[in-house]
């Protein structure tokens, strides 16, 4: 991302990523604070803002988790500083506690919560539709139909939020956040980064007496918001016909393309505010309509509200949506076109894809060459074998989730951030004949690993915790975290050490090791396993910089090669490591020079010492 592109002049057109467009909308409004925890597909919003924070004099941070990020931005908006927080869909679950009360208190300056949903789960554990949170928390939801609208609605959300003193949710998703399109830029607003806080506990403290007053006020405000949203230009009725297509967010883009392909006539109700569904506009769109089709991404949020409106006003119109489109995965032009064709009675079949006679083998994501996690997993398997145990491996969210695959298979459970130590707390009390090994990353440890760690010590849940510290947030694109000693803006700060936290909360056995030193790693993990078997909690930090990052920083330079005269073709290096840099040709291993990162782990595994530094072979 070039800094200049985001700071382009008003009136210019820039080719922006959806997330960059959201960031641009926020600075056009003049936000003073932005905070987030990284998560695909949301990460580039704050990543982009962090690069220009100094230029603009605004506060941008990577917070330790989504709840804290939410609170940072929320407090800014309480003190009159417009703000934005951004997270992936499941991140909003972590932030849902303050979220649920934020409509009660309201805000003073614009406050937009960006949730980036991930239908089809390209990089996520579920497909949740966060528009439900809007209905649940009495917070209006804006849903852009594309990249330009992502910018425009971010701006408008901040403006409406400030005018109504109420938080707004912007629901993005993979195909908005990670789409690129030309965006017409507006003026960058002067940032308001300095706040004032007046002592008004009746406004900011949700004790029961205050909350009861607030709840009544929220209900009344909710009605007013619904009426107001009907008049926004991003909600409108287009075309005419007796079939009404209600298209929300990105569903509108697919609808437009599908209608063009089919060449059919239909009335379209374009919706950018699925929550609350603007009743006045819906009623207006129904005149002469015989059938309705709702196009929306993921759950029937609009469809259910629409059906409820029809019942309220006593209209009996056929409504389709999920029944024709299905409720799994992403919308496509074909899916939408098929549904529209059916409702309009047009015969249409999508073109059939060409299929080669042999299907190509899948190419799943794997640990990168030189990845320190590979070395740790190898040592872990070997240590468990040496101690003679078959542990339960509770896994977590991050690159190390890839340890689920052969040859390692050391992620028996993966549920949510911090779930590794959390679930280990339960297994420790139920499955008594096997030790539990909780595996999580450094950033995940800071995110939500600390409370369950304290719980393990407090409630005497024996386990080995293995923190794979690659000194960055790897999977989402190398964001810094408290263990790196750097802030989002790249400034030095106090570094927080995982081992210090473990010692402070009373973990009796704490060690740090370098996973690239295979023998040291195996022995350290063996000691940890014995502590867990002895009924205590052990925490080990496997510390080694992410190999991708290390190469970028110039920390890894060596290349290894295999001496074919010494190699006996046992293929232990291949089978035990599955390193993409080691390939097999004619039954012999071979190191691909362009891929080798020089971690040297394979040299330590080779039984005949046939692998060495050098460029031969």
């Amino acid at each position, binding site marked *: 991302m070039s800094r200049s592109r985001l700071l382009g002049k008003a009136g210019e057109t820039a080719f922006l990523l959806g997330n960059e467009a959201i960031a641009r909308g926020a600075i056009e409004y003049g936000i003073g604070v932005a905070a987030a925890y990284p998560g695909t597909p949301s990460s580039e919003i704050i990543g982009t803002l962090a690069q220009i924070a100094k230029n603009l004099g605004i506060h941008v941070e990577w917070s330790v988790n989504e709840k804290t990020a939410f609170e940072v931005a929320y407090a800014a908006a309480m003190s009159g500083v417009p703000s934005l927080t951004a997270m992936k869909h499941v991140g909003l679950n972590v932030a849902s506690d303050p979220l649920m009360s934020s409509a009660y208190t309201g805000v003073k300056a614009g406050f937009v919560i960006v949730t980036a949903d991930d239908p089809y789960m390209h990089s996520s554990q579920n497909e949740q539709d966060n528009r439900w949170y809007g209905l649940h928390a009495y917070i209006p939801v804006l849903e852009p139909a594309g990249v330009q609208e992502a910018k425009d609605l971010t701006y408008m959300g901040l403006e409406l939020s400030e005018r109504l003193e109420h938080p707004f949710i912007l629901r993005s998703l993979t195909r908005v956040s990670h789409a690129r399109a030309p965006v017409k830029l507006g003026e960058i607003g002067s940032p308001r980064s300095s706040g004032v806080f007046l002592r008004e506990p009746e406004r900011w403290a949700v004790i029961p007496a205050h909350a009861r007053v607030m709840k009544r006020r929220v209900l009344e405000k909710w009605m007013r918001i619904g009426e107001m949203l009907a008049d926004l230009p991003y909600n409108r009725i287009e075309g005419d016909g007796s079939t009404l297509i209600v298209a929300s967010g990105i569903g509108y883009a697919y609808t*437009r393309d599908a209608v063009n392909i089919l060449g059919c006539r239909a009335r379209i109700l374009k919706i950018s505010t699925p929550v609350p569904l603007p009743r006045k506009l819906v009623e207006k769109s129904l005149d002469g309509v015989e059938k309705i089709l709702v196009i929306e991404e993921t759950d029937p949020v609009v469809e259910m509200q629409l059906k409820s409106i029809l019942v309220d006003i006593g209209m009996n119109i056929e409504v389709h949506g999920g029944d024709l489109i299905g409720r799994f995965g992403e919308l496509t032009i074909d899916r939408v076109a098929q549904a529209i064709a059916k409702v309009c009675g047009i015969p249409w079949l999508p073109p059939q894809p060409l299929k080669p006679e042999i299907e190509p083998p899948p190419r799943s994501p794997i640990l990168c060459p030189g990845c320190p996690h590979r070395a740790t997993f190898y040592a872990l398997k070997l240590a468990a074998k040496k101690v003679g145990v078959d542990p339960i491996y509770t896994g977590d969210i991050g690159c190390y989730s890839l340890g689920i695959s052969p040859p390692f298979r050391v992620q028996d459970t993966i549920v949510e951030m911090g779930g590794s130590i959390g679930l280990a707390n339960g297994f420790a009390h139920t499955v008594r004949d096997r030790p539990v090994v909780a595996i999580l990353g450094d950033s995940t440890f800071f995110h939500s690993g600390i409370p369950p760690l304290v719980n393990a010590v407090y409630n005497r849940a024996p386990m080995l915790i293995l923190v794979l510290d690659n000194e960055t947030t790897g999977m989402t694109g190398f964001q810094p975290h408290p263990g790196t000693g750097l802030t989002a803006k790249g400034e030095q700060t106090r570094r927080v050490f995982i081992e210090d936290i473990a010692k402070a909360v009373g973990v009796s056995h704490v060690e740090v090791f370098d996973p690239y030193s295979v023998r040291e790693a195996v022995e350290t993990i063996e000691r940890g396993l014995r502590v867990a078997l002895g009924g205590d909690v052990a925490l080990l930090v496997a510390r080694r910089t992410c190999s991708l990052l290390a190469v970028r920083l110039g920390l890894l330079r060596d290349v290894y090669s295999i001496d074919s005269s010494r190699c006996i073709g046992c293929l232990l290096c291949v089978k035990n490591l599955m390193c993409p840099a080691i390939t097999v040709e004619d039954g012999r291993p071979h190191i691909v020079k362009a891929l080798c990162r020089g971690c040297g782990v394979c040299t330590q595994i080779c039984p005949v010492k046939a692998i060495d530094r050098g460029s031969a072979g």
Partner: protein
Amino acid sequence: MKIEIAVCGVGGQGVVTMSAVIGEICVRRGLNVVAAETHGMAQRMGSVEVFVRIGDVEAPLISPASADYVVALEMVEALRGVRYLKRCGWILVSNIYIPPPGSDRVPSRRQVIELLSKLPIKMIVIDVEEIINRLEDPRVVNMAMLGALLSFKDISKILPIDVAEDVVQGMLGSVNREALAMGYRQALEKMNNGNGIYVSNVCTYSTAPSSNQG
């Protein structure tokens, strides 16, 4: 006007950068464009596909059998990406071959070409290895393939090579600009002499469809 291009390859090959460059050229030319990318998990050396839709379009995804062009930066991925290609559309295949690790049933280079040439499509194979060797830089696969794509008449009509060279120079520097030009020239030569061109006999094809010099 509507042109749909699917780009596929292996995480790390610069698939996303390629779509960013195409988009930038479109913006320079005042054209509407929507590109969709894959991030996160898929970038850890997994299969990556990016869609670029130019002209009268709104939605970001290309449906199967709908792309006018499929650009495959890697040979095995060409077999996967061909599902997006419409009947008698062009697939541009780079001769970079990266077998997926851990699989013992990977089609060979020759098999990939054989399998593809049985389909009702048009194919051009670009010798990207040669371009990489000449420039001594393995990271230029994406720009070499973009150059090849720009040699097609209906593409060059809207995205001229000189504008593309200018954009690539600005975004990625001169080595990438050279790779772009080399890919462009190689594709034009192949179109003229028929080397590395495979056209199904169900598709119409004139001898020099892309001679765009005039």
